[in-house]
């Protein structure tokens, strides 16, 4: 009897505390933090391609620091300062991934739903890199298809249907604002996305040792973009451009990663328009209006956003959807486009505006990469 009374007292204490801190209304969202899919390839990138691993860690900081900065200021000088801080961080060659929840605390609490989608899709990204970097995995293709199926089962998965990033998904009232207001930072982010794409094709060129041999040239090219952002790019780099072989082999994954990158752009556009979305609640609402378009559960089995689908881009740099240098199959003029990984490695990525200028416009305070 006495024990039962003690239990009731304990429960009462807990309930009283919870009731005291819990507001009447608010935003309720589950955390759903997921560990990476298990396989013999786990952690192959840090083991086999440590230089690349450190580049990816820098990129993780880049997105989060930008978002938190835009939530705090629109002052061009302070945003430019944040860009330089990102460069310093990347060139410091960070050994561990930054904790994005601590880099961008306001963003993750304001719109955890979109951060959760980012997290799960970044985990998919890492799983693909790991599997392709591993010499331990026997049937990589089969394993990756299983990983992909497992990814798509989760409610926060981004759709594998190829959406239209250059058209309807970039035609919202705020669209292109970030590119117009902060063109250097914008193309710096596109450079991250180019590297994330091009790496895949290098990984398909051989085993871990071969990848280790080739990867520095790709990373050096990417560093050129960081030092001199390719402002001539008018649209974000696409997986079929940077990694045509990977995109042909894994078209669903390529579509997911392009959709992910476009969602990043949508987010940055929203955060760049305080005139349209002055409060955090307004920003959250704008983000949550766009996010459902990207979620796979809204495309299968029933497609609620078919009007946002794009044209297929599975065939390579000048394949379906891209007509030669700088023009979409739809007739949309794209301007200068980024090279494929193969073009970089063969020394064919050179002409005109695509070539990063050799002298560094920005010299990070921490100097050159410590590779």
């Amino acid at each position, binding site marked *: 009897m*006495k*024990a039962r009374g*003690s*239990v009731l*007292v*304990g*429960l009462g*204490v*807990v*309930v009283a*505390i*919870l009731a005291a*801190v*819990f*507001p009447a*209304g*608010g*935003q*309720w*969202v*589950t*955390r*759903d*933090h*997921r*560990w*990476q*899919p*298990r396989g013999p390839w*786990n*952690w192959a990138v*840090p*083991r086999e391609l440590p230089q690349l*691993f450190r580049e990816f860690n820098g990129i993780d*900081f880049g997105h*989060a*620091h930008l978002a*938190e900065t835009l939530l705090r200021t629109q002052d061009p000088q302070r945003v430019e300062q944040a860009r330089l*801080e990102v460069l310093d*961080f990347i060139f410091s060659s960070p*050994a*561990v*991934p*930054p*904790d994005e*929840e*601590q*880099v*961008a*605390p*306001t963003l993750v*609490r*304001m719109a*955890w739903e979109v951060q*959760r989608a980012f997290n799960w899709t970044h*985990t998919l990204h*890492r799983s693909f890199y790991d599997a392709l970097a591993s010499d331990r995995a026997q049937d990589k293709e089969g394993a990756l298809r299983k990983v992909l199926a497992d990814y798509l089962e989760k409610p926060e998965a981004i759709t594998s249907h190829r959406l239209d990033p250059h058209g309807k998904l970039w035609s919202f009232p705020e669209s292109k604002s970030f590119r117009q207001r902060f063109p250097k930072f914008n193309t710096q982010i596109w450079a991250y996305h180019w590297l994330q794409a091009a790496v895949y094709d290098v990984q398909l060129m051989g085993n871990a040792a071969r990848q280790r041999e080739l990867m520095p040239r790709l990373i050096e090219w990417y560093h050129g973009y960081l030092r001199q952002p390719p402002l001539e790019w008018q649209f974000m780099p696409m997986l079929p451009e940077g990694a045509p072989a990977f995109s042909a082999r894994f078209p669903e994954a390529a579509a997911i990663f392009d959709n992910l990158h476009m969602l990043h752009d949508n987010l940055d556009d929203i955060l760049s328009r305080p005139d349209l979305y002055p409060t*955090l609640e307004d920003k*959250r609402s704008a983000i949550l209006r766009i996010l459902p378009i990207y979620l796979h559960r809204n495309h299968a089995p029933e497609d609620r956003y078919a009007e946002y689908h794009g044209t297929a881009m599975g065939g390579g740099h000048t394949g379906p959807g891209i007509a030669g240098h700088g023009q979409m199959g739809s007739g949309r003029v794209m301007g200068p486009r980024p090279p494929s990984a193969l073009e970089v490695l063969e020394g064919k990525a050179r002409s005109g505006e695509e070539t990063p200028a050799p002298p560094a416009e920005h010299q990070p305070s921490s100097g050159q990469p410590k590779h």
Partner: protein
Amino acid sequence: MRPLTLVSLAVLLCLVPPAHAIDHKNLDEGRPLRLEDAYPIASGELALEAGVGFTLQRRGADRALLPLEVLYGAYPNLQFGLGSHVSTDPHEIDEQAKSGDLQLSVLYNFNQETLTVPALGVKLTLNVPTGVDSSGADVELKGIVTKSFNRVSVHLNAAYAVLTGTRRHERDGQYQFIVGASYPVGAPRYTRTTLVADVFIQQAPRRGESEIVGAEVGFRHQLTPRLVLDAGIGSEFTGPADRSRFFITTGLSVGF
């Protein structure tokens, strides 16, 4: 657990290759403080947490402690734990959890913290009397709240334990309140080290004795992407005459 086993375990932990994503700011009881946050480990993650600690008693023998716990993220937002600790001078322990007891726990997180809603969690722990001088099974229910202000996170833990097998002069129920905070020193650019501090109050094991009040401070530092080092120190300022004058702990957490 023999010291040699713990040394082997520590060596093993140091040899684990790096990986992507242990949540190094996640606060679990004992690593390094008693303070917990409302979040479990990721679903699908397996974590091993081990350490060594010392407590200097105002009265009675000073003791060394070797805790070990395995955590598993069984489902989204749900974590199971299995742990134990061994202690020198095990007959000197007044608390209900004795040296060699097994602790089974389940932690559930209801929600992610947002701008307006704090993160809420609840933890149920069963202490199984498998150790030296153990006398009965105990059940503890704990409510956990995490609310952040910019990069400072404040955590509130409120627990009540129902104890069985106690003697006449001992309590058969104990409450504990902990309030503390964590802060990533160096953020946003540097997020590898989190400082943690708390103050706590809990009922003394024996009836008629005043509550134990103390404070502790520590840190968690990400050594590699999968390996976290922690350390903490603390003291019990008021309470029974045989309370701890000073305690210190250090340990490692690794995610698989």
